[in-house]
């Protein structure tokens, strides 16, 4: 079955500390992987995506993620967290349909990040 697991429901880090959010997936085809961020009352914003090539991908707001096929993981990292990073983060996996158009995504349940001053 296709699924995305984010094992941490809630994480608290101090401002300036490093961050790693975990994501594991189960997917039958070549996975296309995404991280989204959702601030309270807002929609989801695309942070970064992995389709192919270099397994370390850079995104917006200083985030990066590393695809590890052997571990079926796509963990999100940031070297120094800012208070404005407090939000909920969603990992997602999907596929491309024939012709390269976007297919549907399977989302994890999300990890809520709190940042201590």
């Amino acid at each position, binding site marked *: 079955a296709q699924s995305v697991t984010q094992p941490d429901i809630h994480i608290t880090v101090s401002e300036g500390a490093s961050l790693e959010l975990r994501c594991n997936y189960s997917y039958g085809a070549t996975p296309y992987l995404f991280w*989204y961020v959702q601030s309270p009352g807002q929609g*989801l914003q695309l942070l970064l995506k992995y389709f192919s090539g270099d397994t370390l991908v850079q995104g917006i707001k200083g985030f990066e993620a590393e695809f590890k096929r052997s571990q079926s993981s796509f963990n999100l990292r940031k070297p120094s967290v800012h208070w404005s990073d407090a939000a909920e983060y969603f990992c997602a996996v999907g596929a491309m349909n024939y012709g390269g158009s976007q297919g549907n995504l399977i989302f994890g349940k999300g990890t809520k990040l709190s940042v201590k001053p």
Partner: protein
Amino acid sequence: DARVTQTPRHKVTEMGQEVTMRCQPILGHNTVFWYRQTMMQGLELLAYFRNRAPLDDSGMPKDRFSAEMPDATLATLKIQPSEPRDSAVYFCASGLGGGQYFGPGTRLTVT
């Protein structure tokens, strides 16, 4: 800065009433998705369209939900009749091949 827009942003209605939510996808995107987000279930895909044709609506309760794309600039999600369990945030997203881009959502409360 192209964005997905959704209207209304908030909707409170009584059980049994019809609710229509609208979405304007990003111009040029050929795929449109409808999601529902609740605390209990998280993000659930309800339906999606490619080039205005429905591809998958298996996530929708067929007896009360319907989704359409009358034209390339408008997607609608309708609930008739609405029930309290439909209370959720409904998101529209559009994409072309590089990921899905979400609108701000419609927060629906059915009393």
